[in-house]
């Protein structure tokens, strides 16, 4: 993670085919049941 506030898109992880930023959309991301 370079910035921690949504700017760099470096922390993106793939959840259900979508890339999500852990810093602003996480740190915990819910997977669909």
């Amino acid at each position, binding site marked *: *993670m370079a*910035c*921690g*506030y949504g*700017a*760099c898109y*470096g922390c*993106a992880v793939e959840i259900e085919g979508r*890339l999500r930023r852990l810093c602003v959309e996480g740190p915990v991301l819910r997977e669909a049941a």
Partner: protein
Amino acid sequence: VSVPILNASGCLDALTAPDVARSLDAFVTKTITPLPRDGNPPVRIAETEAGMLNSIGLQGPGVERFLTEQLPDLDALGVPIWVSVGGFSAADFRLVCGRLDECDEVAAIELNLSCPNVEEAPETAAELVAAARVATTKPLYAKLSPATWDVAESARAVAAAGADGLSLVNTIRGLALDPQTLQPRLGRAVGGYSGPALKPIALACVYACARAVDLPIVGMGGVRSGLDALELVAAGATAVALGTVLFGDPHAPGRVRAELAAEASARRYDDAEEARGIAQDRESYSVAKTQKDLQNAQNVHA
């Protein structure tokens, strides 16, 4: 504003950090492409000696969603908005610039002609600028790569194609290996190298292009302090952009602006802008300094 301070494209999200964006003289968006893009697979960031590598790969909403979902909120910030435009062909650049041309909220367009993390368009930088030029009357800044034998030649070519300014420089392609496995640390292996190591490269490019063309230049690459900014101005930049420094220090714009003024003042410039291009000509530098010294001496005796 004497020497405007901007952000480098992709180094600031104005909607998650609006106060930082408001502290700039203009906000430059992350690169907008015709269609939405997921970007490159993770891992996308690797810290290295004297800088970092990124391999984001132009993740973004595409131009239509940008116009409806982001541009109104960006406009509400009250800061001039420059939109960075990317694509994979001249037609892409023409399309996005044509859409932006209709938007009063867009103050200028920066053409990302040099992203190191995606496939390049088959056309030359000048051909891409010419395609964009047809589509818009807005100011067009061509963002060039430092990874070229003669950046001044690129500058002359994009100027002839209708660019109104230059943005110098983009990141330069680099590779980092995991010390244990000796495998690339980034998902796409290579990425764009940025940070302090880029500064001498940026200075050389600005220095060469300021001699080659009579266009405004947004200098960027490894700027961390006001002195770094003043050096870019001395090499020929008319504005300065902050990139990687924003990741570690979101308050850099205000700090660098204050430092730039102090550094200029310490060298007896009334304004940092007076130092523009001073590195180009050692003789004029000493003449200017002598005149200034005489003037100051007269003022003291007056």
